[in-house]
């Protein structure tokens, strides 16, 4: 069984260059639930996700990762328990799919990287043997690889920022299945999306107003 981790955030606010993006946003993602973040383009969904991952400092407010058994995690420990898919994050375009995954597996200290990466690529519908650098991948294939990357270490907290974008209908169905499966396995999911169908996967909601 994987660790059960709850992500709580309280009265978050973010300002860029004196422009307030949002303020007073609170919520939490419980293990086995999907927290959906909605709001129009530019309302701050991705900013909120980046803040929850620890990539951006909140201007105000607090974020806590709480382990069901052991209490709060330090900021340095966040890294090892979370996985992220986000449109603003790129992969290494000169490397092929396996090389990318293998790299992320190694820096995360995942064991049995080789077979795991192969397996994952198969699951997201990519060919592990293909030597094309990722720069030559189609956008949908790119998105699939990003999803594989996020699942690599089977993280107890999963952030999905527009995970279905550029996926074909089959891919979107697969994604839905993956989200359901993760929920059942006790992952805490945070999903930021513009897609009406994806919004329905949520068990909790945070709406940003823009």
């Amino acid at each position, binding site marked *: 069984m994987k660790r059960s981790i709850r992500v709580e955030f309280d009265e978050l606010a973010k300002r*860029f*260059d*004196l422009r307030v993006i949002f303020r007073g946003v609170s919520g939490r993602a419980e293990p086995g639930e999907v927290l959906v973040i909605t709001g129009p383009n530019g309302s701050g969904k991705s900013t909120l996700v980046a803040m929850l991952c620890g990539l951006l*400092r909140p201007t105000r407010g607090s974020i806590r990762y709480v382990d069901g058994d052991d209490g709060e995690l330090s900021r340095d420990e966040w890294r090892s328990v979370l996985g992220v898919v986000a449109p603003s994050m790129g992969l290494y375009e000169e490397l092929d799919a396996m090389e990318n995954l293998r790299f992320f597996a190694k820096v995360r200290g995942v064991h049995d990287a080789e077979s795991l990466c192969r397996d994952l690529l198969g699951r997201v519908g990519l060919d592990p043997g293909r030597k094309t650098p990722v720069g030559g991948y189609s956008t949908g294939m790119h998105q699939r690889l990003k999803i594989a990357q996020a699942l690599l270490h089977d993280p107890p907290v999963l952030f999905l920022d527009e995970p279905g974008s550029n996926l074909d209908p089959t891919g979107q169905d697969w994604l839905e299945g993956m989200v359901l499966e993760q929920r059942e396995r006790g992952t805490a999911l945070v999903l930021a999306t513009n897609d009406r169908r994806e919004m329905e996967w949520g068990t909790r909601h945070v709406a940003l107003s823009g």
Partner: protein
Amino acid sequence: MSSRGGVHRVLPWVLFVWMAVVIWAAFLWAPAASGFVGQSSRIVFFHVPTAWVATLAFLGSCIASIRYLKTRQPIDDIRAQAASALGLTFAILATITGSIFARIMWGSYWNWDPRETSITFLLLIYAAYFALRGAIADPERRAAMAAVYAILAFVTVPFLVFIVPRIYWSLHPDTIINVQGKMKMSSRMLQVLFASLAGFTGLASWLYCIEVRLERLRRARQHEELI
């Protein structure tokens, strides 16, 4: 509060009188040192303190930078910035006074003496510091990156000031407290020099306080304009 304000009003006048006395003493009270061309040794009373204040300011900037990285308070960034600006200014003054000195003592304004070159690089480092600040828009990131660079800069300063001049042959006088621990100046000269050092340190602290206040106001105003 009011008594503190009172002290703040009085101090600049004390400083003013002190500096006036120092200037008078430097030109009229202290004797001209032997071994220097004419009356030129008097420039020491201004040259050495400016160099001293610059070094002090760079130290201050390094300390403020370390504090900033610990506390992340904008005020520490303002302090670091003000101290660097002050250090830069006084380093320029030391170069100018030294350069005049050099013209008299060594015959030309610039001799590629290691002191001259090392101070040039000190100037360049802190000019680079401000170039870096200018190249980062986000205030928090700017502050952090500048702080890191200020610390890196201060790491190289000892090498620049103490080791490089010892590797290259130099015309420049030894430090006052030299290897033998001997003082080479007459007691009157030393008195004036130390008075001047104290005066310049006071002057610099005063300028520093003004610059910090000014920068705070500047940032506050920027805030208002953009909102």
